[in-house]
């Protein structure tokens, strides 16, 4: 049932919900990304540093830093074709949006980033005698986002020292929940002068260990005062050992050794080693009792990156010595993008104008698919996704991949869609889109072929209640399910998007065809996962999507190059789902 009613919809330019950075009109072949950085009231933020960096490029050569002018404007000029991230740094401010993944821009885009005053946590630190604890480092780790969803791999991002009164004030905090620690997670912390607390185990607010830490929820622009910590001053233990194995071509590059909690991935401690001239010993101090995972990683995001396999470490009342971490090269996935152009006969109607999309504006993402097989679960230090930009020939390479299963997720110009993702050497291999790609340690997959086609369709719209006296659930996702029976198992034909609080959704890069549309309520458990897997990755979940979508039976046919906007989708629950909450992502 296709209801085409013109409604006034605030259209989010991004398909990532929660991102308020706005893209305005894009002209092709531009060489500059321009924009404006504003404060919470829309006032310009002058003389703010803006970093513009090409996404998915190893090492560098791709970044520039520009200062905003009096009017908060910036201009990053002479950019090569590609996708870029834009990051503004203003002390004490945070971006209003808290995107799970960063927004990207292409030359020609105009970016407006709104920054708001970050949250503040303040308090004092005293010892058992009630005296102030002076010059102690107090840090905050963001363990939940503003929606209370746990953040994997939380590490202390903001830290300040107590003053002579024992007072501290941590500012510039993104909305969310934090654990606050004195001497916590010595991540990349260098000190040329010895501290009085260097080898102490951290004390978490109010006066406890990490597992009993009380979380403090703060919103940007707000202050939480009175976070007074009674410092325990317990000596921690030392976890030490040696590195062995391959260290790559350039030994001066260095390695970080990270100790993290296996379940949350939260970083307890980390150290950086230069690896110069046979330096192979490492030591992490002040480690409290606990069970950890330790991993060494040369993490530059470039070719020849290397890492150790994660190892379990149990610290219980004593130092742990003699841990050997064997470094081995990390894996990579490389390949090529082919684009099937439209036939001349197909260049009509919506497809009349050429899109001008460039291969360099394609970014291939290798995303860890952890649920596929629990044994392949990544180590806590591993990034959940790694990007690789394509060059002008469509060749791409994604570096620094640990062992595990990956999904290849192309991020494409709007006019293209994915036809297939195959290992070209083995044509019998099923489409990798449905299975993902299992990478063994150090494996280099070189022959991935991603076939794209021109003429993608897009769908934007809004979900509304089915009638005036019904309502929509607080959170839901919109799914596009292929309507043709023969495509029921074609994962590439499935699409989904989170729906913002205003009911607006946007899905791009769609293959032309007939789709069933389904707005599906998201369970609380499902919502708690910040980076959910796509539902359609599971065969059983696909079957259920098919069934539910057919039951609701909202069909939309998308033609080549069609951009359907202002689409209104009435929220309906599938008949059999009325009795129990939908559960499609077990």
């Amino acid at each position, binding site marked *: 049932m296709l209801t085409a009613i013109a409604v006034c919809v605030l259209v989010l330019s991004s398909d990532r919900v929660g991102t308020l950075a706005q893209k305005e009109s894009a002209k092709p072949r531009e060489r500059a990304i321009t924009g404006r950085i504003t404060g919470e009231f829309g006032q310009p933020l002058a003389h703010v*540093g803006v970093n513009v960096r090409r996404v998915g490029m190893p090492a560098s050569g791709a970044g520039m830093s520009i200062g905003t002018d009096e009017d908060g404007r910036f201009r990053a000029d002479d950019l090569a074709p590609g996708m870029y991230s834009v990051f503004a*740094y203003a002390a004490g401010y945070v971006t209003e949006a808290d995107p799970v993944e960063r927004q990207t821009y292409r030359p020609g885009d105009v970016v407006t980033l709104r920054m708001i005053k970050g949250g503040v946590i303040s308090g004092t630190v005293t010892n058992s005698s009630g005296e102030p604890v002076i010059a102690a480092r107090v840090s905050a780790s963001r363990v939940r986002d503003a929606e209370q969803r746990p953040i994997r791999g939380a590490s202390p991002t903001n830290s300040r020292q107590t003053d002579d009164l024992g007072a501290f004030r941590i500012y510039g905090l993104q909305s969310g929940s934090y654990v606050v620690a004195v001497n916590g997670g010595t991540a990349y912390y260098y000190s040329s002068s*010895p501290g009085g607390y260097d080898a102490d185990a951290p004390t978490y607010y109010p006066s406890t260990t990490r597992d009993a830490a009380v979380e403090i929820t703060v919103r940007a622009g707000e202050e939480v005062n009175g976070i007074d910590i009674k410092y325990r001053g317990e000596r921690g233990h030392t976890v030490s050992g040696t590195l062995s194995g391959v260290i790559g071509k350039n030994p*001066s590059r260095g390695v970080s050794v990270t100790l993290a909690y296996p379940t949350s991935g939260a970083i307890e401690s980390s150290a950086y080693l230069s690896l110069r001239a*046979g330096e192979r*010993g490492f030591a992490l101090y002040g480690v409290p009792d606990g069970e950890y995972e330790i991993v060494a990683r040369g993490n530059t995001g470039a070719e020849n990156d290397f890492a150790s396999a994660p190892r379990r470490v149990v610290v219980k009342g004593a130092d742990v010595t003699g841990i050997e971490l064997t470094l081995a090269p990390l894996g990579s996935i490389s390949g090529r993008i082919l684009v099937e152009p439209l036939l001349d006969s197909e260049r009509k109607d919506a497809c009349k104008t050429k899109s001008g999309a460039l291969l360099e504006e394609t970014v291939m993402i290798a995303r860890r698919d952890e649920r596929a097989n629990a044994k392949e679960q990544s180590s806590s230090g591993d990034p959940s996704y790694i990007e690789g930009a394509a060059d002008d020939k469509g060749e791409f390479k994604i570096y620094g991949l640990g062992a595990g299963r990956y999904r290849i997720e192309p991020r494409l110009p709007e006019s293209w869609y994915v036809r297939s993702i195959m290992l070209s050497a083995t044509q019998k291999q099923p489409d990798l889109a449905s299975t993902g790609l299992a990478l063994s340690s150090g494996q280099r997959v070189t022959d991935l072929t991603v076939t794209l086609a021109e003429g993608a369709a897009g769908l934007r719209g809004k979900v509304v209640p089915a009638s005036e006296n019904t309502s929509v659930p607080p959170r839901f996702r919109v799914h596009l399910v292929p309507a043709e029976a023969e495509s029921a198992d074609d994962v590439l034909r499935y699409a989904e998007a989170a729906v913002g609080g205003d009911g607006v959704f946007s899905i791009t890069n769609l293959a032309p065809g007939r789709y069933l549309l389904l707005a599906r309520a998201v369970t609380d458990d499902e919502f708690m996962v910040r980076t959910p897997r796509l539902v359609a990755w599971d065969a059983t979940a696909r079957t259920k999507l098919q069934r539910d979508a057919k039951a609701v039976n909202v069909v939309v046919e998308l033609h080549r190059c069609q951009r359907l906007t202002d689409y209104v989708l009435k929220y309906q629950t599938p008949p059999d789902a009325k009795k129990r909450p939908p559960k499609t992502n077990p």
Partner: protein
Amino acid sequence: MRSLFRTAAVAAIAASVTLLASESSAQQSKKEPSGSISGRVMLGDKPVPRVAVILTPSNPVAFNQQTTPPARATTDEDGNYRLTRVPAGSYNIVPFTPAFVVPAETSFAQPGKTVTLVDGEEVDGIDFSMSRGGVITGRVTDADSRTIIGQNVRVTRIDERGQRLPISYFSPFAFSTDDRGMYRIYGLPAGRYKVYIGDPPNSGIVRFGYAGGAYAQTFHPDVSDESQAEVIEVTAGGEAAGVNIKVGRPTKNFVATGRIVDADSGKPLANLQYGHGGLASPDQPRLGAFGWTGNRSNENGEFRIDGLSPGRYAAFVVATEQLDFYSEPTMFEITDSDISGLEIKVRRGSSISGLAVVEGSDDPDVLANISKLELRAFVQTEGLSAPTMGSIRINADGSFRITGLRAGKVGITLSNYPPPPKGFSLLRVERDGVKQTPGIDVGAGQNVSGVLVVIGYGTGVIRGQLQFQNGERTPDMRFMVSMRRLDETSPMPVWSEVDARGRFSVEGLMAGEYEIVVNPMSGSSSAPGAPIPVRTPPKPVAKQNVVVANNSEVEITLVVDLGAKEKQPER
């Protein structure tokens, strides 16, 4: 920038002096060290209970690389502390009392004292007499009353005549403004201060990868002229509040762009890391502070340097590993606009190859250390050279190859970072049996082979004690002892700090006769805002020759005459 230089120089000296001690600590630790250091921490006439007293190797290189946390003791109710199980070595001892002023009496004028002890030695009487620190606090805003967040506030200390004094206070990095623009500097010695934020004019401060606003130096209350700054009196334990600063607009930053090209063909060179630095002074082609972001030239050889404030700079290709070419830095000046069209020329370098051998031992275990040694090459040239970061590894068979050299006189040394294993030092560099001093002449594009690098190994030990005549040594008198082997093949003396008790020691010396010279030191800590005092050229104050044999220890006493006024270190 000057302070940066100085820090580097200090580190270099320290490295050559004390790594032996720290190396020996590692070895000694296997047989459970039994040394101890004790003393008392006082504030005026009152003991200071329950504070940590920290022991760190006095050699900063060793400190950065150590794999055990710094040792620590806590004072009892009477202010007494005792650090036990201390291995032989040289250490800095400092009470961790950031709100108090700890006299800066270590060898390098950091707060605390230096102690050099031998295995099993019990050192007593390392006492500390502290005073309460003062506090300066205030708020920083701009002309429109907006708060200035996350900017460091610094102080300079002045005497009655308005002359700058060196200062040393705790935690120089902690005093930045918070989200309300508030700052609080504590632990300041009683005295007169000027408070400022921002960069001093012509400071040569170089930023990397950040183009946000920077502020010109502004003193409390709102002046850029230091002589107009309001002087803040700080008393021991007192608090000067409301020391607000009003800053002007941030200074504008500029961009420099250009290409990296092959000097011969003119072809652009892609994927090369580049860096830049400020020129040390307007008329000298010498780099001051320099660095790099990791950015590389693009496929057209283009580079781009952001965030430049007005000043003179040079851009160059960064070699963090051995390359077979070198770059000719391009100098440029930023005044009031961006600059483009710069060209960094890259040329194929010369090379030196040869063999490194060890003299003074036949022990295969000792000789096996050769692959742990690294060399460094320095080319003496006219004009500006790009800094070289890479060191040269020696293969297990002793062979080495240095590439990417500019033509000129090439000096070769043993790299001090990381420290070479104990007992190794460079003796000489030979070519065709002829000693090369100060360096090897290398022509453009030349490949010099057959160079012999002779490295000495020894296990001799010199320990000594200074005695003072015609006066008492005050804590601010610091000395270094140099020990030079009286053999024409030994070019560089080794150095030892003299500790709070007048003790010094060096281990791992090659057998031979040594000339021991005591030199006074001056200088102060390099806390931000502290002026760098003019360094007096060290004048020897005592001298003696001794003969050292392998596996043996020489104990000597040197007498320093404090009556001779001109030989005292200058304040």
